[in-house]
């Protein structure tokens, strides 16, 4: 019986382990692999990659304990560019591979890179089950509302009427809202950020600190096939302040330079915009964000808000701690181990036995 076989989840190596990187302060460059990055010039993916590579040395996790897992699509090339462990897998299935990896190796820091086609169309089912199970995975959903790698078909998050190669008369499909979907799947952490904004860094930091599945929608621009998909929220300096509601925990939900706030009408159960410039006396009606509210009811309201009726909430919408999948699985494994570990004699010589002399 080797100790490797005992039902103990492998523990992370000590930061000072010989040959490890724990004590050496790494930099962004240490996370850049030798693979040449091959996204289109101007693609929003570059910004995300740069942010992630900047964040990595700050997380206090040895580089060798990081694994990036992706499916198929433009964004799914991401792991090749990270000087960490990584897998570029099957279309839509990254959550399933990552769940298997995380359960088998809870000591690893596992990230999932996916896109709107990958995780909301072909991989929708795995996304659902990952979220409800709540393994500790950091999921980065690159939402550009288009199929890029197959050269421009409408995706599950494309707006209705989207004219694309496969929808010359406009898509008739009604789009999915990823964060509403995630909440419906009991997601314990949901957040949203814009690929090129600095808010992404902080969101990813918080996602990393979360125990459980952290689901981050990144509004990402496909410069070739869907340029300007997030124009008002991302590119247009005039609309951006009105289109973005930057959420800060325990702070009032203010936007447009503090001139507007979000209120909630209890009679109709709907949010509304308060123009504080016109009605400064209504400041007390502005909602205070509470990302850890266990009920998650305000997260549902926030997730449903879209521009131009409302600003689009950015930052952490919900952060709720509940037991992680890998912890619960290993709790059972450990409980089972109380019966004695790996005794083959006991395994084989059980049941109704008889002897032949």
């Amino acid at each position, binding site marked *: *019986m080797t100790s*490797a*076989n*005992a*039902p103990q989840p492998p523990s992370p*190596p000590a930061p000072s382990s010989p*040959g490890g*990187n724990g004590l050496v302060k790494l930099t962004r460059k240490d996370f850049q*692999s*030798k*693979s040449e990055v091959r996204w289109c010039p101007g693609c929003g993916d570059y910004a995300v990659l740069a942010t992630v590579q900047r964040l990595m040395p700050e997380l206090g996790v040895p*580089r*060798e*304990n*990081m*694994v*990036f897992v992706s499916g*198929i699509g433009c964004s799914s090339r991401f792991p*090749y560019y*990270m000087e960490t*462990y990584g*897998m*570029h*897998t*099957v279309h839509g*299935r990254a959550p*399933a*591979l*990552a*769940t*298997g*990896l995380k*359960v*088998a*190796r809870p*000591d*690893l820091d596992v990230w999932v890179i996916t896109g709107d086609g990958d995780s909301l169309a072909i991989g929708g*089912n*795995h996304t*659902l*089950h990952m979220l409800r199970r709540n393994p500790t995975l950091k999921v980065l959903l690159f939402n550009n509302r288009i199929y890029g790698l197959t050269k421009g078909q409408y995706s599950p998050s494309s707006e209705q009427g989207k004219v694309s190669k496969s929808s010359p008369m406009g898509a008739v499909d009604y789009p999915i809202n990823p964060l509403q979907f995630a909440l419906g799947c009991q997601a314990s952490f949901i957040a949203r950020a814009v690929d090129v904004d600095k808010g992404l860094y902080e969101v990813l930091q918080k996602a990393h600190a979360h125990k459980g599945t952290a689901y981050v929608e990144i509004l990402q621009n496909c410069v070739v096939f869907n340029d300007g998909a997030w124009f008002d929220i991302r590119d247009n300096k005039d609309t951006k302040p009105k289109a973005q509601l930057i959420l800060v925990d325990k702070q009032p939900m203010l936007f447009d330079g503090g001139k507007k706030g979000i209120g909630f009408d209890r009679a109709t159960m709907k949010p509304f915009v308060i123009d504080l410039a016109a009605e400064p006396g209504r400041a007390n009606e502005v909602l205070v964000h509470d990302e850890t509210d266990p009920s998650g009811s305000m997260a549902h309201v926030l997730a449903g808000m879209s521009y131009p009726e409302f600003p689009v909430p950015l930052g952490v919408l919900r952060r709720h701690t509940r037991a992680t999948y890998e912890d619960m*699985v*290993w709790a*059972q*494994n450990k409980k*089972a181990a109380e*019966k004695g*570990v*790996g005794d083959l*004699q006991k*395994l*084989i*010589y059980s*049941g*109704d*036995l*008889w*002897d*032949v*002399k």
Partner: protein
Amino acid sequence: MVSRVDTPSDKPPKKPVVETKKSVVIRFAGDSGDGMQLTGTEFTRAVAIAGNDIATFPDYPAEIRAPVGTLAGVSGYQLHFSSEAIHTPGDAPDVLVVMNPAALKRSLAELPRGGMIIANSGAFTDANLQKVGYQKNPLEDGSLEGYRVFAVDMQAHCKNALEGMAGIDFKEVSRSKNMWALGLMYWLFNRPVDKQLEWLKDKFKKNPAILEANLRVFKAGHAFGDTVELFHETYQVDSAPMEAGTYRNVMGNQMTALGLATAAVKAGLPMFFGAYPITPASDVLHNIAKFKNYGVTTFQAEDEIAAMCSAIGAAYGGVLGVTCTSGPGFALKLEAMGLAVMMELPVVIIDVQRAGPSTGLPTKTEQSDLLQALYGRNGDSPLAVIAAQSPVDCFATAIEAVRIATKYMTPVVVLTDGYIANGAEPWKLPDVEKDIPPIEVKFRTDPNGYQVYGRDPQTLARAWVRPGTPKMEHRVGGLEKDFLTGMVSYDNVNHQKMVDVRADKVLRMRQDISASVVDGAQEGDLLVVGWGGTYGALKQSVQRLAASGKKIGHLHLRWLNPLPGDLEAVFARFKKVIVCELNGTSKSGGQLWRHLRAELLVPALHYTKVQGTPFTTAELGAAFEAVLRGEPAPSSLKV
């Protein structure tokens, strides 16, 4: 002759004569809700412990509860037990225990004249007779002339036995008649009842009322045989001359699970078992879920694809990845299996085959996933395929799969089938230290000179590196990789080199295949070739003909990919080769036949059957004799 005695006679009973038989085949048949599988397994346990060699064939409908009393709802359990070594559950029953008219109708054609029928006459009501198209009651109209029929109203006897018991309703009375039948079988075959009473006490220890009911009814069935003068003889089947050792009675799916857990311990490697429920494979998941203290983590995935993918994810993490399914689920896993081929990770995929295509016959056996396993992926995607030949052999096959997967860094497909998955036989327990060698697994931790697709010169396996190992961070994935560095490569010549090396790696496994062993004649007129769960029937049929002087041999293949390297030489020793399998058609041939012809250009004959049931030795014997006479093998439909 129909004997009908519903009340014990007042006269002191005459002791029946005890007749010794070499082998008996009993079939229990009744409605899905009649508990026939339980009766069958309980009686199997009794005869196994008494030292008989056994083979069983549970045959049940896909519906949990088909409409009561219909042909569709008949559930059967056939048990062959013997004082000699046996390899099949028997072509035809000697004793048929039927709980209703539907069960009689379904099984009668297979019962030879002179066979015994024990019928629950209480269920032969007008309504039940009509449901299956009997105009008259066959127990009364003389149509069963030539059989030995014992018509007993089991339900009435159960009711008497339970009279006065509080808390027992009509439903429980009705449900207990299988125990009554079991009690009668214990008497008829002279089995000591003590063990059975112990098992019942253990099984129902949480429910004293139900326990009491079962004990009363079982004893009543036993006493019935003793007190009525219905049976003129009882039977004795002596214990079989089995090798000395400790035995237990096992089923194939259980052995697959035991084999996997054993392999995990022997490899000193944690195992991740991801699966999605599917008939007839779910019992592997059920069994292995109890082995968490053997380093096995089980994961019930959201679908077949996730089950496969989670196993691959675990394998990348340095944990042995295993998944288990049946044909339709296997089809769903194929794309991800291609990823495992590309990433060269050790994963074991178990396919408990059932009759297809599509949903097919979920509870019936077939061997029709061979081509799917060999060729069912996009691109040139070779992997190891091995098959288990009996319930007990599932154990060794599962261990072999783990050994090959880790040695060659490759997915391995294990093919079993519904017949051996649910069939039972005695297992002579191995010495866990001496009989099961350790499985050597190496992880590379030295970053000096590490190349992601650098290969062991002997096995062509790339190194297994666990994430968490410093300075060896690397990426794998579905895109073609450079022959050495593992970087994404679109180079045309590199792709051909990679296709070649993936194929060569599988061929290298021949160094792990022992020389082919032929049973029966070592050369001569006819070589019978089979694979998987047909082993017992082929062996018995060939042995019978070989014993009568025919120059016939039997070769059973465990390795389907790669094929053993010595097959051409073995085939050359025989004038004719016939490939027998449970798939294909008499016109198009079977799947192994096709594979062997393609690989070896052997002008083999074929014999195929797809009726959801195993081969019978009778039909095989007739086919082989025809071929030996120089005639074409008859269709399995006509035998």
